[in-house]
């Protein structure tokens, strides 16, 4: 069960430690169902912390976004830890960053929050439109309880939970320094029914589906910016020489961008679904990511973000990898 008091107490203790720089958690957003990341620098800010079904943000993204300012001569760089609150999926992002040596284990303090599934804001806002004042939402068994301005409403989980949560296999953090409350049962078995359905179509049907989706892309790069695995300092999409992908938003460049983005996450995507959540034109990006995750899992028995000691998928090989596609 979620215990906010315990969460705030531990947050206070953590942020008061000498070796912790700040803590990243969640807080109430500016309106309605919105939730913002909360960067907590002192114990007095702990009261703002929340954890509810609305906390869908993956805070692991912020670990690699920390600005590294030049250090004045004679001074040592700030080597204190960053404490971060993670759900099950977010913890896999942290592990994957550790595998890739994107962050160091000594620089991060992980506070695990076992999670019973987060909401899909699009579904919620469709159900309760036009709500601007902050709302409280809680888990309660198979239901989600909404405390709205006009009364308390109960909604079954299946109707409002995000798609990725309905088939989630890792609701509990796979790695954490402290786990805040008891572990929860996983909701699904991580099947790939939607991917299999897509695979069975013929090339023309597949392309007409994806052409429609890709041509609506406005190339805002939100999906890249929010992705906890997209943290290259020199991104191939920003590079001008060589410029692999032009900046014009047409079907050719959009397809190239989408394929490149998906492929850069092959064997790395931890399926937190953030890209799809932030996409302003609703491209089913997770369908691409999940296709690659399915191949990696079924053909190579590999899953990213589970063991910090393992090697990244694409920089390792086995001599007997499958090669039935080779002429």
């Amino acid at each position: 069960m979620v215990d906010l008091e315990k969460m705030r107490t531990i947050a206070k203790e953590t942020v008061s430690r000498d070796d912790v720089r700040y803590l990243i958690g969640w807080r109430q957003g500016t309106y309605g169902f919105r939730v913002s990341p909360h960067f907590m620098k002192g114990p007095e800010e702990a009261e703002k912390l929340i954890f509810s079904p609305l906390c869908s943000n993956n805070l692991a993204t912020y670990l690699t976004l920390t600005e590294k300012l030049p250090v004045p001569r004679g001074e040592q760089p700030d080597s204190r830890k960053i404490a971060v609150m993670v759900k099950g999926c977010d913890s896999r992002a942290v592990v994957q960053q550790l595998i890739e040596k994107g962050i160091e284990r000594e620089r991060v303090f992980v506070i695990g929050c076992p999670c019973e599934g987060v909401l899909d804001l699009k579904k919620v806002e469709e159900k309760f439109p036009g709500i601007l004042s902050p709302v409280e939402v809680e888990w309660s068994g198979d239901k989600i309880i909404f405390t709205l301005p006009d009364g308390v409403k109960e909604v079954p989980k299946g109707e409002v939970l995000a798609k990725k949560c309905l088939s989630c296999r890792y609701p509990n953090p796979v790695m954490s320094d402290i786990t805040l409350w008891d572990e929860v049962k996983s909701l699904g078995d991580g099947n790939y029914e939607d991917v299999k359905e897509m695979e069975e179509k013929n090339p023309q049907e597949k392309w007409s589906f994806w052409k429609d989706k890709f041509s609506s892309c406005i190339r805002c790069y939100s999906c890249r910016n929010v992705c906890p695995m997209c943290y290259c300092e020199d991104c191939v999409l920003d590079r001008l020489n060589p410029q692999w992908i032009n900046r014009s938003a047409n079907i050719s460049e959009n397809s190239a961008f989408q394929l490149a983005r998906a492929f850069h996450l092959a064997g790395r995507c931890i399926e937190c679904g953030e890209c799809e959540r932030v996409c302003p034109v609703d491209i089913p990006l997770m369908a691409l990511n999940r296709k690659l995750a399915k191949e990696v899992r079924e053909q190579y028995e590999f899953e990213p973000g589970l063991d910090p000691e393992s090697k990244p998928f694409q920089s390792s090989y086995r001599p007997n990898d499958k090669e039935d596609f080779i002429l």
Partner: protein
Amino acid sequence: MSEQFQPNVVAFLCNWCSYAGADLAGTSRIKYPHNLNVIRVMCSGRVNPLFVINAFQQGADGVLISGCHPGDCHYMEGNFYARRRFSLMNELLEYVGVEPGRFNMSWVSASEGAKWKDVVAGVVEKAKEAGPFDQFRRNKINW
């Protein structure tokens, strides 16, 4: 169309095996289709998936990547990485609706001039069957 469609196939050949194999096919006077545009790379592991996407954007109807047989790589393990990478690339391209015959990968060693001929004939045949690639080709802008 009275004339048969002649596809444009881009081939990335590894310097040590496939390029030498293609050379052997040439010096042995083996005839094979002329639709190939060969790009020599030092290893099949050098080929970035973006090269493939870019080739399709710039007018390729088919792409062939060819390297040493597994275990024969001049750099010990380059083709093992390439195999993993392009197996996924192949799946991804098929998933978005690129016809299965357009993307190909093969192992051709320096002594396999005859195999090289068969591989090229197969790849060109498949590209011909699939027809001109226009799914995400870059439009030429006439300024």
